[in-house]
Structures are given as structure tokens and as C-alpha cells.
């Protein structure tokens, strides 16, 4: 008997815009000790599926339609009275949420929050519950659990808080753990720790795990079986190997093709066209039809999941295609797009377009005790240069100072120290007119497609204002023509000009942001995490657009991201940042094949691969501990407390390691222990 069996689950929401069929006929099962991953883009019904199992869907507006069944072992959850359901939550099914910052109560110590769960259960009295809580803290890998017990959530890092959440979820030894995007808010090195922890606990406790994520890499890494959701339905299910090595549904294939891979450099991605439709307006017939490259007449009828529901070991696909194999070949030829021309980096003789030397940005902070002024060294001596037409990828985990560096270069915030020269001009001494000229030549695209557009202005007003201010198109008609031209360049329609930002999807907003940056015809564009808020299929569309624009307009990019696969995909050269400093820089191929710095190497090994088990995996380096606060960085090499290098010693704390040559073709790394080793 499976641990959890969901049959024909339909959860609908009554909204102003009609009935949103968020989950619409989902069946699957989870066995004991098995990890089942649910993947899909946002708005596909993954989270609602999880909430339905917990019976936490708010009613109204939500409702689970009759005919559905959710069986946990031998009990039907949908028929349980509310009291009995409360007993099930926590004891038999526990849930871990995405946001570790907001899921913990800020006024209780973390230990008390775990103990509360144990005491409420009634099995343990206060003192024994406390001991059990400390033991749990130890089990989820919190160092020094006795002390940590008495700390408050804000004193812990994001990764630690997620561990606490897991400890609370595990407190009553549930048989099933539902993890909803448990690592999305975390950095890769921390994500690797948490995934590792979940896998170990599952093994030790023979738990079933339902892992919900948009990240295909995470699923490939830890799941046994995978359910691919699209538009409220499971479109394909199978084992990890089946899904990733021989995907059958066009959506699954599209998702995989959209994904920038670590093993491939600078190849044009093949994104799925369009966007996930609104849940109140799923298309008739096959719901993927409007975005499907293979769609033909038959797709007007809804395809059944064939063969029947997702029993363990069974492979299901909700598509007509497997019935007509001859169509597959034809369409496959369409899918392989011609490789686009990559940006050609100029020869080294030409002076660089942007040269940054010893850039520093310190933020003053009020220290809690005494009056002495502490500083956060957000950027602490960063130097690099970018040649015309080249893309420099700046990669690092959150809080390493990459965005601060970008803003300091454009003087959106004043740098504390350092020299910046753009096209030979000194940026730091610019004023008034010179600064305005710089703003025409160097632009920035932001991460948040929701916050970076003024909600009260139409697209035309927004772009028109810039053209007017810079005197680029003073006449009304020329301005309008130029705006339409810009929209066309970024793949939007003329009709979009009169709309307001809230009427667009995330990907479209990002295109507007790109159009805005292009409106002044800049030479350099700083892309600050331009795709990290987007779903993979849309991410691929935007990445392709940025590539095409670089080819057509000869743009130079400084591309900032925490995602190593994206960086590999877009960059010519890469610089890796850690706590305000660049620790390694090299050409993209060298960095990904012959990384030297211990941090870079652990970073690379921490990324979940989408080539499951099959692909040979180099040694996996699991970093311990958290990223230190930039307000109190460790002395000497910032990385040394977490470093795994066998030669690590007292010398590492002595001084800041300089960025020294570490291989051919400008490969440099900041680690004194590499001096003796030969550059591969």
C-alpha cells in the first residue's frame, strides 16, 4: 500500500475573473522512503496540490471538488473531521515552506518553537521535550544545539532557519514530509547542505518526501520519481532517469531545452514560446497546445494520461504524440534552431571599455554596543576590465557585493574608493553633463521586473520621457516611431505601448526593462540578475534576446548572477566574488573546466546537475557553515573558515591573498596555497 495516494484531485478557486482551475485532475502516489518531485513553472498548481493534501486551501475562495480522494496509508483525509485533520498535520504529514524568514515566529526562541510542537502532542513533558528539541537541532546539523536552542530566529542565517523549519517538521516523526520550494530562497552552497540533509533524514527515518520545486536541477539531484505539472495537470511522470534522459512530453522537453547547462557554453537556448496562461483560462483540449511546437488538429481534444495514473514504476504522458511517432521526427527538426552568432570579444590590443581598479564601497552601520562606527565592506577592493563587445560574468552568492559593485560603477551609489574608467574617461570625477553623457552610454537592467517599472506610467510614457529628456527624439511622431521600434526589438507588440506595467507578465516586464535600457543606445549594459525572478522557459527567452541584441548592436555586458549555469551560458570571461572581493577570474571555459580557487570549486560542485546520476560527477565538495557577515569578515582570506583545502593553515589568516596568475590566458586566483601547485 502506498504511503500517500492522491486520486483525481481538483482544487478550484472562485475569483473575479472566473473559476481558476488551479489543480485539475491530479493523481499520483508516494511510497514509504521515496522522494517524489513535482516540477513545473509558477502558476502550474504545484503548491495548491501540496496545500490540498494538508487541507490548508482557504475555503472560500478555494474548494476541492467532490470525486477526489487523498488517502494517507488507510485513511481518507478528505473525509476526516477538522479535529482529526489537525492531528494528522504535523504528526503524519509535515510541511516545510519556501520562506524561512517568515515561517518562524520572531518572538519565540527557536528551541521553544520545536518544543511547543512536542509538548502540544502530549507525549512528552516540558523537560523531556526540551531535551528532545536539542537532540533534533543536532540531528538537522545545527552546531552547538544547546546554545542555539535559546536563540531567536533573527539571530540565525537563512540556511539555519530552514534547518529549524525542518526540525519542527520532523519533531513528531511524520511519515510524509512535504517540502515546498525548500531551497529556493537559499544560496547554492547552502542549498546543497539542505538537500543533503533532507536526503539523509529520509533514509534514516524511512519517510516519504514530496518535493515541490521549479528547479529541475534540484529534482534531478534528490528525487526518485518526478511529476511534471503544467496548467493544473500532471503532463508526464516517471523515474528521474526516464524524465531527464528520455522526456516524452513536449513541455518536459521544452523545459529541459530551456535550461542553460553547465556542460555547454554559449549555445542558443530553445525556449518554450509564450507564457503559462492564467488559471482561469486554460486552453481547451491539450492545455500545452498554444505553446507546443508539435500541435496539430488532434490536440483540440484533451489527451488522456496514458497509460493510467502515476503508479510507482509506471510512466505516464498526457500527450497525443506518442501515438503518432511519425510526427515526432518532423517536429524535432523544427526544434533544433540554428546556432546564433555569439558576441565576438575584441582583440586584447584595444583598450578596455570599462576598467575598474580597487573599487571599494563601505556602508556605515550603527553598532549595537558603544558608539564606534562599524562599516559593512560590501565591496572591498574589486578590479576588473571589460573589453568592447565582451560579456563579463560576475558570479557570487547573495551578499557578496556584486549588485553593490554594479551600482557603484554607474555612480548610482557613490563608491568609497577606487578608480573607474569608462571609455577612457574617469567616472568618479564626472559631474552634471558628463554624468548625463555616461548615463547614455552605460545602462542597467534590474532583477525585479515588478519593482523596476513605475506602476503609474504606460510603456510609451516611460520610454518617451527618456527620449525627450535626452533629446533623442524631440518630435512627437519620431518619438512614437522610435518607441514602436524599441518594442519590436525586444519582441513586444505595438499594442503594448499604451499599457501599464501591471498588465504584463514577468517576462514581458523584463523586456520593457531591456527596451528602456536600449532607448538611449548605450554601449555597456549592466544586467543585474536579469533572469533570476523568471521561470525557466521565460528565462531562456530573455537570455536569447540579450544574446541576439549583443550580436546585432555590438553591446558590452557586465552580467551579474548567482546562477553558475546562466553565467556559463552568457559570458566570455567570469569573475567569482566572495564577501566583497574577486577570488578568481578566468575565461569561461577555463573557469568551468579548471577552476583553481577552493571556493569556486565548491561552488561548481554544489550546483544540482540536470544530468541525473548518469553523468560522471566530479568529487562533491559540501561546504560547512554559512557565509560570514560582511560587517565582520574573517581576517586574511575571507574564505578560510569554510575552506576545505588540505594546506589551509595560519598563513591564510595573515593577509589578504592577492589575485595572482593561476594558469594560462589571464587565469587568476586569490589563494596563497595555489602558489606551489601547477596551473593545469
Amino acid at each position, binding site marked *: 500500500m502506498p504511503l500517500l495516494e492522491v486520486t483525481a484531485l481538483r482544487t478550484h478557486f472562485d475569483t473575479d475573473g472566473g473559476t481558476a482551475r488551479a489543480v485539475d485532475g491530479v493523481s499520483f502516489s508516494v511510497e514509504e522512503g521515496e522522494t517524489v518531485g513535482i516540477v513545473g513553472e509558477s502558476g502550474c498548481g504545484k503548491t495548491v496540490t501540496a496545500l490540498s493534501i494538508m487541507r490548508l486551501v482557504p475555503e472560500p475562495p478555494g474548494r476541492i471538488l467532490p470525486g477526489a480522494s487523498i488517502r494517507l496509508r488507510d485513511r481518507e483525509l478528505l473525509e476526516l473531521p477538522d479535529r482529526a485533520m489537525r492531528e494528522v498535520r504535523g504528526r503524519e504529514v509535515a510541511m516545510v515552506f519556501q520562506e524561512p524568514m517568515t515561517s518562524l515566529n520572531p518572538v519565540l526562541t527557536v528551541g521553544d518553537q520545536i518544543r511547543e510542537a512536542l509538548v502540544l502532542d502530549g507525549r512528552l513533558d516540558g523537560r523531556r521535550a526540551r531535551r528532545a528539541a536539542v537532540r533534533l537541532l543536532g540531528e538537522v546539523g545545527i552546531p552547538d544545539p544547546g546554545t542555539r536552542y535559546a536563540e531567536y530566529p533573527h539571530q540565525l542565517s537563512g540556511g539555519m532557519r530552514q534547518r529549524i523549519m525542518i526540525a519542527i517538521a520532523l519533531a513528531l516523526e511524520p511519515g510524509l514530509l512535504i517540502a515546498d520550494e525548500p531551497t529556493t530562497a537559499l544560496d547554492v552552497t547552502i542549498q546543497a547542505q539542505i538537500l543533503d540533509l533532507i536526503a539523509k533524514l529520509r533514509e534514516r527515518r524511512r519517510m516519504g518526501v514530496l518535493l515541490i520545486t521549479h528547479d529541475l536541477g534540484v529534482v534531478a539531484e534528490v528525487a526518485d520519481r518526478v511529476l511534471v505539472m503544467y496548467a493544473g495537470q500532471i503532463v508526464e511522470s516517471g523515474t528521474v532517469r526516464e524524465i531527464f534522459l528520455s522526456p516524452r512530453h513536449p513541455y518536459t522537453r521544452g523545459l529541459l531545452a530551456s535550461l542553460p547547462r553547465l556542460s555547454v557554453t554559449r549555445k542558443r537556448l530553445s525556449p518554450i514560446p509564450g507564457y503559462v496562461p492564467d488559471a482561469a483560462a486554460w486552453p481547451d483540449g491539450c492545455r500545452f497546445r498554444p505553446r507546443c511546437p508539435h500541435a496539430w488538429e488532434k490536440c483540440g481534444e484533451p489527451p488522456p494520461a496514458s497509460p493510467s495514473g502515476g503508479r510507482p514504476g509506471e510512466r505516464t504522458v498526457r500527450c497525443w504524440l506518442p501515438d503518432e511517432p511519425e510526427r515526432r521526427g518532423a517536429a524535432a527538426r523544427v526544434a533544433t534552431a540554428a546556432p546564433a552568432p555569439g558576441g565576438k570579444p575584441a582583440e586584447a590590443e584595444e583598450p578596455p571599455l570599462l576598467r575598474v581598479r580597487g573599487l571599494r564601497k563601505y556602508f556605515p552601520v550603527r553598532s549595537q554596543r558603544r558608539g564606534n562606527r562599524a562599516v559593512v565592506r560590501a565591496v572591498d577592493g574589486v578590479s576588473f576590465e571589460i573589453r568592447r563587445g565582451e560579456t563579463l560574468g560576475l558570479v557570487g552568492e547573495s551578499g557578496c557585493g556584486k549588485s553593490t559593485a554594479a*551600482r557603484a560603477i554607474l555612480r548610482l551609489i557613490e563608491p568609497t574608493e577606487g578608480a573607474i574608467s569608462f571609455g577612457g574617461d574617469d567616472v568618479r570625477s564626472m559631474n552634471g553633463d558628463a*554624468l548625463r553623457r555616461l548615463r547614455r552610454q552605460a*545602462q542597467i537592467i534590474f532583477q525585479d521586473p515588478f*519593482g523596476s517599472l513605475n*506602476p503609474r506610467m504606460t510603456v510609451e510614457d516611460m520610454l518617451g520621457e527618456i527620449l525627450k529628456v*535626452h533629446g533623442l527624439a524631440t518630435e512627437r511622431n519620431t518619438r512614437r516611431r522610435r518607441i514602436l521600434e524599441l518594442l519590436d526589438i525586444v519582441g513586444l507588440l505595438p499594442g503594448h505601448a499604451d*499599457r501599464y506595467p501591471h498588465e504584463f507578465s514577468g517576462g514581458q516586464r523584463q523586456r520593457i*526593462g531591456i527596451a528602456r535600457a536600449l532607448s538611449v543606445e548605450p554601449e555597456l549594459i549592466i544586467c543585474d540578475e536579469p533572469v533570476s525572478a523568471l521561470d525557466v522557459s521565460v528565462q531562456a527567452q530573455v537570455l536569447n534576446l540579450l544574446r541576439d541584441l549583443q550580436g546585432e548592436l555590438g553591446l558590452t555586458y557586465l552580467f551579474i548572477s548567482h546562477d553558475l549555469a546562466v553565467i556559463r551560458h552568457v559570458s566570455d570571461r567570469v569573475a567569482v566574488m566572495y564577501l566583497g572581493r574577486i577570488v578568481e577570474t578566468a575565461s569561461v571555459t577555463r573557469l568551468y573546466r579548471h577552476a583553481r580557487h577552493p571556493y569556486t570549486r565548491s561552488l561548481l560542485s554544489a550546483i544540482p546537475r540536470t544530468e541525473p546520476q548518469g553523468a560522471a560527477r566530479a568529487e562533491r565538495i559540501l561546504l560547512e557553515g554559512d557565509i560570514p557577515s560582511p560587517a565582520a569578515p574573517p581576517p586574511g582570506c575571507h574564505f578560510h573558515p569554510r575552506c576545505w583545502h588540505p594546506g589551509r593553515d595560519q598563513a591564510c589568516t595573515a593577509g589578504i591573498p592577492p589575485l595572482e596568475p593561476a594558469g594560462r590566458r589571464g587565469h587568476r586566483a586569490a589563494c596563497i596555497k595555489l602558489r606551489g601547485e601547477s596551473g593545469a
Partner: protein
Amino acid sequence: MLLPGLPAILGGRVAAGSAALLLWIALLATAFLGWERFLRALSGTWDERLALATWALAILLLAAWSRREGRPERARRAWPARTQWALAWEAFRKNRLAVAAAAVVVLAYLLALLTPLLAPFDPALQGELTTERLLPPSSRHPLGTDQFARDVLSRVLYGARISMTIGFVAMSISMTIGTLLGAVSGFAGGRVDTVIMRVVDMVLSFPRLVLLIAIIAFFEPSIFLIVAVLGLTQWPHPTRLVRGEVLSIREREFIQAGRALGLSGARMVLRHVVPNALAPVIVAATLGIGDTIVLEAGLSFLGLGVQPPTPSWGTMVADGRDNLFGAWWISTFPGLAIVLVVLSFNIAGDGLRDALDPRSRR
């Protein structure tokens, strides 16, 4: 077309339609029954002419609205783009209570403006003191008469002009000062911010009523003085509100994008910051008018506000308190007017807050 509201009623929107229809009939009836006053008003004082203009405008607006309602669905939905304001309006319309409250507010202001054409008597006119004192409501005096044999209905109507004008003007003054100072304080930051906020703290730490009593005790009370005093003591609240709003908008990425695109500071404030900070100001202003009306009534009740014989709701309540048991109508009707108008302002303000705040939407 001839009967505004009828198409709306037929189209299923009964409440809005019948309200429009009733208003139309009422407006026409005033003109029909009081055509002599209308003729006299043509060459009368400025507030009589203002009342005439208001009357004509109301008729025109109703007719225009009716024309729009009468046209087929397609033509009417020719909204060029669904702006945030249009969305807010849609959300506001769903809140029946708030719409009704807003209608009451509009009606109250309409009545106040039309008073010279409507009021049956001069508010200061004293009737025969022996026979017409303290008359209960009757057909000649629908709300009765007071101890000086003045018509209470006329005084309530004229009182509405005073009370609501004071509320509106005082609030406009404090909102203008508050928005300006708040925007400057939030956007400039640093020393400017510190100075402005400390002044705000100082003004806030003064007991307001004592300040008002002191000022009014020193100077001859007049409507102008009351408006000035009320307006000039209320600005710290909107200042704090706008400053907070601006501080959060300033950190948004579109402001950074604007700076990266080389837009000037003044343009950023006027085009990007202020429009985004406007919504809470509108809400605060709506709620604030109600507060100010209550405050003015309180001052007048204490004899510190509008001086007799000028009617204001507060003074009228005070006038009637000696005869509360013998002649309840003198205090009760102005009191009800205060309650109704202030309640409407507050309900409409709450509705506006829900509609304008995207966080509370859906």
C-alpha cells in the same frame, strides 16, 4: 435621454439608476417650485449665482452621464488602458457601502452649494418671538424653530456650508503643506529630513485643543481664523505619512532606473515619486475632512468657533442644549447632520483605502 437613470435601471443597475432619477426629479422640482427665486438669483449675490451655476452643472452632468449609459456597451468600454486609477475605481465600486457613503458626501456638498436656492428662510431671520418660538416640526418649518424663532432647516442647510467649507479648506491647507514637506523630507533625507521631522514632533507634542483655545482667545474669532488655525495645526500627520511613503518609493528600483537614465531630481519627484505616493494622501484627506468637521463642531460648541448668529452645526447643537427636553429638534437635527456627514466621510475613506492599496486587493 430625458430621464437620466432610466437606461441604467433597465440595464439592471437599479440603485445607481434610481439615485440618478431621483436627483434629476429633485433638481427639476426645485427649479419649478422656486422659479421666482431662480430669477432673483440671476441678479443676486455671488453665492446665489454660484448656487445657480451648481444647479446647471448638476443638470448637465446628469444628462451627460445618462447619454453615456444610454449608448451600447461597446462604445462605453472604450477605456484606452486600464490605469491603476481605473482599477481602483472598479474595486471601489464593488464596495456598496462605500459608494453609498460617497454619494451622501456628494449630495451633502450639492445641498450646501444649492442652499441659497433651497433654504425656505434666511438663517438669521427671527420670526415673531411670541408665536413662532420653539415650534415643533411642521409643514411650514419642517425641522421646527429655535428659541429665536429661526427656521432650523434653513440653519442646518446654511450650517452645512460653514461646517463643510471649513472641513474642506482646512484639510486642503494641511494636506498641501504636509505633502510638500513630507516629499521634501523623504526625498532629500539627511539634515533637511531631521529638521522637518523635529518640527513635526514639536507641533505634535502641543496639546492641540489648548493651542486652539489660546489662539482664539487672543484674536477675534472669525471663520478665516478658524480655518487657518485648524489647517495649520493638522499638517504633521500628512507630513509623516507622505515622508514614510516617499522613503519606501525612493528605494524602489524604478527610481534607480530613472537615475541611471539621467533624469533630473525635480522630474523624479514630480513624475515618479509623487504620483505613487498620492493614494494614501487621498485616503488621509478624506478621513481628515470628517475629523476636521468634528473638531470644528466641538470648538463651536464650546463657543470658541464660529460666532453667532452665523449658523454652524456645532453652535446649533450648543444653542439647543438648554431646551433639549422641551425642544429636542434644535440640537438633534444639526447633530444628526454631523453624524451622517462624518460617518459618510469615514466609510468612504475606508473604502478608498481598500481600493487604492494594492496589497489589500484580492
